[in-house]
Structures are given as structure tokens and as C-alpha cells.
């Protein structure tokens, strides 16, 4: 079971900047273990961002996104008190959903 994300959403002017840290190995599929065997790729494949439960962005990621991924974007028209939800799903089917309130 994956650890929670850290989501910070800060309103400024007519938008809110969202910064997300996700806890994930993001194994590249290029690395070899001690016995010289390739460690299979294991990575977050899909990310969805919601503003007050409405999808505002989806993303597809490959294994080249760095370990413990960071993501930053800005939602137009989001104000303090609004809800931001982030979901991710990895290539093994594990997933995680966390929420934050815009401050």
C-alpha cells in the first residue's frame, strides 16, 4: 500500500498553484539487480487532477519520471477553500487518492 501524497494548493490571483509529491519507486525497467537481472519497470502510469470533483487534467507518465514524483500545475479560477483531488494508478494496478484544500 502506497504512502499518502503531499498536496499543497495555494490560491493567488485568479488561479491556484498545486504542488504534489507522490511516494513511488518509479522503477525504470533499465536497472539490474545484484544478480544482473533486470528489475521490471514499476511506475505511475496515470494521474488525474480534480477541482471540486471535476476533472481538470489527466496525465500519462512513463518510467522516466523521477522517483517520488513531483508535479506542479495551476488551476484557473480555484479559490481558497476549494477542494483539489489527485489520483494516481501505477502499471501494477496499485493506486492512491488524496485531497487537499486550497489555502
Amino acid at each position, binding site marked *: *500500500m502506497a504512502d499518502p501524497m503531499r498536496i499543497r494548493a495555494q490560491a493567488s490571483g485568479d*488561479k491556484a498553484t498545486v504542488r504534489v509529491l507522490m511516494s513511488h519507486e*518509479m522503477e*525504470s525497467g*533499465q536497472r539490474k539487480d545484484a544478480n544482473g537481472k533486470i528489475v521490471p519497470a514499476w511506475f505511475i*502510469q*496515470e494521474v*488525474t*487532477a*480534480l*477541482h471540486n470533483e*471535476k*476533472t*481538470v*487534467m*489527466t*496525465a*500519462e*507518465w*512513463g*518510467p*522516466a*519520471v*523521477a*522517483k517520488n*514524483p*513531483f*508535479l*506542479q*500545475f*495551476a*488551476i*484557473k*479560477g480555484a479559490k481558497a477553500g476549494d477542494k483539489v483531488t489527485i*489520483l494516481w*494508478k501505477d*502499471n501494477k494496478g496499485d*493506486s*492512491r*487518492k488524496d485531497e487537499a484544500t486550497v489555502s
Partner: protein
Amino acid sequence: MQTRRETLKHSAVVAGLLASTGLFPQFAHAAFNKNAFDAKSVQDALKAIGPATLTESKDVTITGPDIAENGAVVPLGASTTLANVKQLLILVEKNPSTLVAMFNMSDSIEPTVSTRAKMGQSSDVYAVAITADGKALFAKKEVKVTLGGCGG
């Protein structure tokens, strides 16, 4: 060793996740474009996504360091001043697979995203903006990856 409390907590989260899949059907529907992420060049990745031509444009910006102290984490951002942007892509030309991330934008999002990529070696990095009418515009810059630490 998991305590009972932790197990309970985890089950609750799993239940929440199962529920959420139903709540947000679009999440389940997003199909992973495997061909695009397997592509070995910028051109091939683009082909797998749609647009046939790729043009350099001042309206697209790639942000990233000139030099990365470590290739394991390279901050990269893509942004554009163009309207009607459907997708923003971040690519690293010399990675085993070129496409790093693809963002499907909506009107509710500023057309600017940043994340962090792994880079196996020094390479050009690309930001590509795909507009609603199928144009692909790009910006690129070189990021040098250095060997850090004691090399051991």
C-alpha cells in the same frame, strides 16, 4: 510487522479507492498510450500520439537546468502562450524511451506543468504543445548531466 490498527486503516483506504474508481469513471477510461512511451525518438513518439509535423515555436517554453548535478532527478517544465492546447509533452531525446510525460489539458488549467525526469546522459530535452487543431509545436534545450560525488 503491521499492527491491527494499521491493517484496519489500510483496508479503509483500499475501500475508498475502490469507491473512487466508480466515482471518477474517466480515471478508469484513460488509456495508456504504450506506443508513445515505447518510442525511441521525438518523431516516433509524436507519430504515436497523432500529429505528423513538428515545428519549433517561440510560443512554447521548456524549462530545465543547463547542468544537472544528478541525472536521477532533473526538473523539467513545459508551458505555452498558445490557446487551445490539448496536450503538453515533456521528452528527453537520448533516454531509452523518449517520452517522459504527457499532460491532457483542459480549459480549467493554465498551460504550464512541471515535473522531474530521469536522464541517463546529457541530452536535448523537449516541450511539445499539441493544439486542438492537431499542430505540434516545440521548444528544446540541452541539459548536461554530470557525474557527481566520488564516482564510486
